């Protein structure tokens, strides 16, 4: 079995009275894709931002390979530079061109010389099919294009894994496909990914592991075959039934 890249142990997070994460544990192996599903407001997105400590968890420990991220002595900025993140609303830097969006982390955080950073950025933009948009600004692109730039931005940092926070749910239906295609390609190339998504077609086709979350806990976890066809948990069955009705099992 491939080695464990990410290990999350007993994660807790509350906002005042509201408990969002109520003891979450799971692990992700090298090269695998984990898809987290569940109804809105069940803490999936919070879980993702807790993993790179953008949202500091109240309790619990997280390891990236053998480094404990949650150890206060760990240089969190260094850790973040090796965990990519793709946001629901893209969060591209609005004042920078596509090229500069991808390049900024390389020059500022990794201190890579500009020529080299440019070459890397163009390579990654090529990978997501946007090498012809280098000098466009985010606001001049479609949502699907913006999300692909943001994937390239994450890729450029040469991350150990990439977190996807509902990467397609802010997109018009006709633009979802181009983003999913890039993600499928990434998964096939061996990138480790943790994806929060409602795209059941994607989950079925690509996931090694599916986690169903509800009310801050993991209700059930398993491979797609088990989850979709042999789930023993009535909550999982009900959720999967509803979501497939709603979104359909979109083929990739």
């Amino acid at each position, binding site marked *: 079995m491939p080695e464990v890249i990410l290990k999350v142990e007993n994660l807790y997070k509350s906002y005042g009275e509201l408990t969002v994460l109520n003891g979450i544990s799971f692990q992700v192996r090298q090269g695998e894709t984990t898809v987290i599903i569940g109804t809105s407001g069940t803490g999936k997105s919070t879980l993702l*931002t807790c993993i790179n400590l*953008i949202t500091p968890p109240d309790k619990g420990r997280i390891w990236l390979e053998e480094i404990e991220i949650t150890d206060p002595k760990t240089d969190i900025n260094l850790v*973040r*530079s090796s965990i*990519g993140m793709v946001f629901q609303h893209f*969060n591209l830097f609005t004042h920078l061109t596509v090229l500069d969006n991808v390049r900024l*982390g390389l020059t500022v955080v990794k201190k890579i010389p500009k020529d080299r950073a440019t070459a890397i950025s163009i390579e990654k933009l090529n990978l997501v099919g946007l090498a012809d948009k280098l000098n466009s*600004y*985010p*606001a001049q692109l479609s949502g699907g294009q913006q999300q692909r730039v943001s994937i390239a931005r994450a890729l450029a940092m040469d991350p150990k894994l990439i977190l996807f926070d509902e990467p397609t749910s802010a997109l018009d239906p006709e633009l979802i496909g181009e983003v999913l295609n890039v993600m499928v390609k990434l998964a096939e190339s061996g990138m480790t990914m943790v994806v929060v998504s409602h795209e059941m077609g994607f989950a079925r086709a690509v996931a090694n592991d599916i986690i169903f979350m509800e009310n801050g806990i993991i209700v059930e976890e398993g491979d797609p075959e088990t989850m979709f066809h042999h789930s023993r948990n009535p909550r999982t069955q009900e959720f999967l039934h509803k979501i497939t009705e709603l979104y359909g099992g979109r083929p990739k």
Partner: protein
Amino acid sequence: MDQLSIIWQGLPSLLSGTLVTLNLTFYFLALGFILGIILALGRVYGPSYVKILIILPFERFFRAVPELVLLFLFYFGSSFFHINISAFIAAVLAMGFRSAAYQAQIFRGAILSIGEDQMKAARSLGMNTLQSIRFVILPQALRLSIPSWANEYAVVLKDSSLAYAVGVTELLRQGRYIVARTFGNALLVYTVCALIYFILVFAGNQVLKHLEEKYKIPGYEFKQRREQSVLERI
């Protein structure tokens, strides 16, 4: 002496007054800019005791007390505390601090309207807070601030005329001297002064409009947020 030759002969002193006015304006804005950015960043990202004990009282005071009173406080205060500063410096401090309180509000509004998503994205790349502010937040906040900043330029330029009251020989005081020398002609001389101010405001606004156009982000429209409380708005 006919009116035209009064203006003609007074022109050199009016122009030297104009230079002093521009000088004052420059220093007001510069001091206000530097201090204003620090205050705004402190208010958005700083610890809350700094906000409550230092930044808010500073902003409230310099926004609530009239410019002329501030000017007197600094001018007469310096001699009260036996600090020897010129009227020019007293004016720069008073109006510079006032402008800082206003510019802080401009920058703060801009930073807040950029929203947290940009900060999150920067942090997720591994940038520290300072890098995120330097490369992601400020470049956007400054662009967004240009229109309000144009307004502040006009306000500060016009308020520089108050330095007259503590004896700085800026444009209006030079006008006053000409009126005194030529026994009258106040209407003419002050109208010319007003015209000079008007030209300066107009020219400055053109430059800033040009800057705004130049630094506009293609395709992007900022949504300006509006302050709910009057004190935060004035």
